């Protein structure tokens, strides 16, 4: 009797794994590692900065990564550059106008061209990027790394999984109405963005 039940239990477990709900990963990182780096490389001047105020949720199913959806939010006031006057200009009305546009968002609709090898998934994230009140559809190359049961190694009191998201993409500031009249030899029109994010799906 017992020997007949064991395969059934294994099958039930496999079915449960296959039919498991997608995991919701919270990107409000308690360790403060999550960041977005931006770079404007103009002929006369290179401007580098970063943002740390990142939050949002991504729903990811390790068995079916293509169905990944979610939204990443960057607090626009958390953008910083090393020069204080430049930072004032960056956050001011002529550039990002963070008082009126406090959030920069990427709403992920789906993953395309998905290739998974082990715990790593490489894909193109199709979504809507919103900056300074202007939304554009973007296709962003991303790399997702699913770290099962690794949450406790970062946050000792919690059990669960981690999802690491890395992305590099470029946008044009003129597309988003960010001081389009500014000279491009001093402030590049192209903005290189690098996202380095880790989200946590805690288990009860």
């Amino acid at each position: 009797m017992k020997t007949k039940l064991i395969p059934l239990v294994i099958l039930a477990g496999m079915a449960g794994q296959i039919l498991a709900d997608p995991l919701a990963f919270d990107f409000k990182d308690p360790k403060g590692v999550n960041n977005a780096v931006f770079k404007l490389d103009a002929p006369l001047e290179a401007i580098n900065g970063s943002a740390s105020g990142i939050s949002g949720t991504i729903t990811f199913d390790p068995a079916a990564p293509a169905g990944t959806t979610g939204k990443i939010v960057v607090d626009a006031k958390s953008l910083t550059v090393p020069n204080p006057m430049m930072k004032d200009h960056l956050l001011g009305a002529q550039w990002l106008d963070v008082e009126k546009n406090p959030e920069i968002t990427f709403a992920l609709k789906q993953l395309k061209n998905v290739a998974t090898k082990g715990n790593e998934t490489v894909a193109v994230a199709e979504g809507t990027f919103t900056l300074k009140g202007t939304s554009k559809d973007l296709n962003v190359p991303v790399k997702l790394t699913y770290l099962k049961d690794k949450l406790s190694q970062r946050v000792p009191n919690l059990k669960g999984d981690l999802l690491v998201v890395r992305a590099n993409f470029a946008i044009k500031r003129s597309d988003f109405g960010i001081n389009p009249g500014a000279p491009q030899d001093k402030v590049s029109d192209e903005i290189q963005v690098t996202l380095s994010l880790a989200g946590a799906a805690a288990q009860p």
Partner: protein
Amino acid sequence: MKRLLRWSALVLAIAAVTTWLATGAHRGWTQTEVSVKTLDEVTGLEGITTRPGFMAGVDFLGAALAVAGALAGLSVFFRNPNIPEQTQTLR
């Protein structure tokens, strides 16, 4: 006064160049924040934190040298007190 202005200009210029070189001879704008990268070993991500830190830029160097030049230029309008005023009388 002439000597004081010239010495002030020289000291200011040397101090500005020394400060610029000592803080890394940064060719961009002056920075008052420094980025520090930390590696998260579990995720492999590099976190970025900022801390207050001064790095003199070309704007700092240029402004200091301009003030030094202005002081040196201003000194031209003052007489050297060690040289008595000479008067010439024509006979």
